């Protein structure tokens, strides 16, 4: 039987506020245990939550970015359960009326475009951390993370493969960073996914019984967990079994999912509106202000790049996968609008290779788009070959890297001509003076009588050897197209 995999994702994004969602304590990562847990985070008797305006603002921005409805009022509710790293014995979340409802995210898998519908996005607080090691059989509690603001983004079960799920997750990851609401740092837990996975016979309308895989903190784990889980479910069904609705955990070491709890022991969270927090009303003017503050969104930009520059959807997706890349590309192509494809190739090829080597982001790139554009301009106008350009780029990089400042933080335009300076000072300019080329070629023809004869006997290979000799004599600086043309003219004369 052919099986169809059905996936919905719940993405927990940590909002990039300075302080916690209901207290004034810092959200900075990495402090000594409990150093950033104030009276409210510790749930001392008598303390009360006060909503962080910045968290709401970020939720609004997300809602607008995915074309969702921003609810007013929305309601904070208590989710009651006991756990040592949940100090109040309840988590403040949103249940019946979330701040964001609906919306869509467009993904591109290969050349296929697909729209993933969102159910909702709601604000909630994170729990603390239980540390089970290093305490001699006891458990340590670190409440620094308790009260960190989260936006939980819930999708419809609209994805049909782990690849689609990962693409969607990456898209959301890119979007929340793009609009500046989350730093997206997955190692620090700023972006985590729960995947709801079920399978059904191809063509079936009914959803199968799902399992929820909790807390996937990398795209690779997300992909592998879904693949494993889908295989597991298909095997059970093909053996005539039934799927139990479960919450499962993915073990990356064994590459498998394990049951955590089943539906039968699902807790009753006894949700009810938090009487300490009033219904959240968001004025139209606040939404309007958030709207006007939003940058061009990735999908809008992608369509624009396709339309204005005729780039493929593969290129535009890659260039808009990240706001930093997109910004870099936009600034580069602005200086070289005549060859957007050349800009795209370098920004997706040579530049990231160097950045990755030094673990730098596009924002912290030492070379500015203006500097890169000048180099590419020199390829375009034939001053240097693509091959020489790579050599020049290497030198530009090491020169710029000495200053160690990111292009974004620099205001000096002194080095805008770095490419030209290097080409000039090292005489890397292509020889395009035809007289000079002709004499070089004449020399090569005279010195390689045998190859000339072979060519005339019909061996095309010999022609390449001769061209190679010319390039060698020119130390790579000859324009290959020009050499070809002159050589052919002379040999066939």
């Amino acid at each position, binding site marked *: 039987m052919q099986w169809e995999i059905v996936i919905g994702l719940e993405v927990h994004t940590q909002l990039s506020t300075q302080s916690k969602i209901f207290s004034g304590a810092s959200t900075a990562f990495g402090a000594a245990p409990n150093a950033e847990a104030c009276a409210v985070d510790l749930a001392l008797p008598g303390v009360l939550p*006060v909503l962080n305006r910045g968290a709401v603002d970020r939720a609004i921005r997300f809602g607008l970015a995915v074309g969702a409805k921003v609810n007013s009022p929305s309601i904070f509710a208590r989710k009651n359960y006991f756990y040592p790293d949940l100090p109040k014995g309840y988590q403040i979340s949103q249940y019946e009326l979330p701040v964001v409802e609906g919306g869509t995210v467009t993904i591109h898998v290969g050349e296929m475009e697909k729209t993933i519908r969102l159910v909702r996005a709601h604000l909630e607080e994170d729990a603390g951390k239980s540390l089970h090691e290093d305490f001699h059989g006891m458990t340590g509690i670190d409440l620094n993370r308790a009260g960190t603001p989260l936006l939980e983004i819930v999708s419809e079960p609209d994805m049909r493969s782990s690849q689609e799920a990962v693409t969607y997750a990456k898209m959301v990851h890119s979007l929340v960073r793009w609009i500046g609401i989350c730093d997206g740092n997955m190692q620090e837990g700023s972006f985590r996914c729960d995947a709801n996975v079920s399978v059904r016979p191809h063509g079936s309308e009914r959803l199968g019984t799902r399992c929820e895989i909790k807390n996937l903190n990398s795209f690779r784990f997300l992909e592998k967990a879904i693949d494993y889980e889908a295989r597991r479910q298909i095997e059970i069904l093909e053996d005539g079994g039934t799927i139990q609705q479960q919450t499962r955990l993915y073990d990356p070491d064994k590459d498998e999912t394990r049951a955590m709890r089943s539906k039968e022991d699902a807790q009753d969270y006894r949700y009810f509106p938090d009487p300490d927090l009033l219904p959240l009303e968001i004025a139209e003017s606040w939404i309007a202000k958030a709207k006007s503050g939003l940058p061009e969104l990735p999908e809008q930009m992608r369509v624009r790049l396709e339309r204005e520059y005729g780039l493929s959807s593969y290129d535009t997706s890659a260039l808009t996968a990240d706001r930093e890349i997109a910004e870099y590309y936009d600034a580069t192509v602005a200086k070289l609008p005549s060859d957007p494809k050349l800009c795209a190739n370098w920004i997706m090829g040579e530049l990231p290779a160097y950045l990755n080597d030094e673990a730098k982001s596009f924002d912290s790139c030492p070379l500015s788009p203006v500097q890169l554009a000048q180099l590419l301009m020199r390829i375009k106008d034939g001053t240097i070959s693509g091959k020489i350009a790579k050599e020049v780029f290497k030198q530009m990089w090491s020169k710029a890297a000495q200053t160690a400042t990111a292009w974004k933080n620099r205001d000096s335009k002194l080095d805008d001509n770095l490419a030209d300076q290097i080409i000039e000072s090292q005489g890397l300019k292509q020889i395009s003076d035809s007289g000079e080329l002709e004499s070089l070629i004449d020399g090569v023809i005279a010195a390689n009588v045998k190859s000339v004869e072979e060519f005339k006997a019909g061996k095309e290979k010999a022609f390449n050897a001769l061209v190679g000799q010319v390039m060698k004599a020119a130390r790579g600086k000859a324009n290959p197209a020009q050499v070809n043309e002159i050589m052919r003219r002379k040999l066939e004369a």
Partner: protein
Amino acid sequence: MLNFSLKQLSTLLTTKRISSTELTGEFLKRSRALNADYNAFITIDEETSLAQARAADAMIASGQAGPLTGIPVAQKDIFCTKGWLTTCGSKMLSNFVSPYDAHVVERFNAIGAVNIGKTNMDEFAMGSSNETSFYGPVKNPWDITAVPGGSSGGSACAVAARMAPAATGTDTGGSIRQPAALCGISGLKPTYGLVSRYGMVAFASSLDQGGPMAKSAEDLALMLNVMAGFDARDSTSLMREPEDYARDLERPLEGLRIGLPREYFVKEINDDVARAVENAIAEYHKLGAETVEVSLPNTKLSVPVYYVLAPAEASSNLSRFDGVRYGYRAPEYADLNDMYCKSRAQGFGAEVKRRILIGTYVLSHGYYDAYYVQAQKLRRLVAQDFAEAFKQCDVIMGPTSPTVAFDLGERISDPVQMYLSDAYTIAVNLAGLPGMSIPAGFGNKGRPVGLHIVGNYFAEAKMLNVAHQYQKTTDWHMSMPNS
């Protein structure tokens, strides 16, 4: 001096006829002596109180005294008080020394009032007789075989027995007004949101409200001037221009319209209480007030609605007492779950457990709509009743409690009977309105009767005016139990 008003005491202090240190010392001496019989205080800390008194004396000497500077005030043990044991009447918090001050405590500290001790109360404010306190029941100073009412019974007793000139209380369903009535003192529950709940251990967040307890309405006004005010740390705190609650005390009551709900004067009310209230109304007629009959048809729903909503909120509010970070933890346990179960089983008393169970039940899947959602709808009806009534009158009057103080042990084994005694006061919390109780004579066995005055939202100054004018022509509030 025991019967002096706050204003008189303040005059003594500012004219240097007595120092705060001396005044505080006197009240401490009296509290120590009487507490053995009355059990009004959980914590008395002479040293800390006297240190505060000395600081107050310095403030007075430097000419920075305000109306309550140097005056001893007892704090209900529900208000977190930095460096003080803050138990909320529970074994669960019997080892909890607060690292911070409640907003209310901060405000008293800021003006140089002296904390004279932490008063006894029903455990987590759940009770109407003070018998649920882990620290044992408080006695009614008018008759030590009677309850003082609850949950602010310690504060009521302390003021009635003149162990403190004034005290703070909290009122979730009558916890200021009912003990004030039963102990023959004055108590005010302000409009919900007027006094910050920050640092006040939560029982039922949407109903809890702190307020003053004192001998007279005039004293309540001065206390409320300190306690009321916006606090950004409480999202339900109301942002309002500060007002002087004493500003209207001397207004004549000519033309005042008093609403008498026909549902209040029915068979549940005892004759002795009814007589005292009728006499008080007659006194108001003499003062130029008129009475109108009003109707609060949904008042009868108040008790059932309250006993869904308050336990629901409490069951969640009290989840933080899990033995993990502070408070009582069972000495022995097998695992995490066992630790929770044993710590909570041993740390909470029977009444608290009963309400946690009720609250957990009404919030459970499948029952939520039938109980919690329904109760919220009815709550709105109760509030609408008052809104209608206030179209016809300025204040509503009736008995605070249908009976005078009952005997210790009389109702503790019959929770429903106990709950019903709060019928008059509970509706006011459900509506978020201000309510107060003032002494209006004595009933059976010479036990005090309280007159319940309910005002519209933010009508505290008017209510205090209404109460003060009565207290100017009567002296029930000046009666003091023998000790």
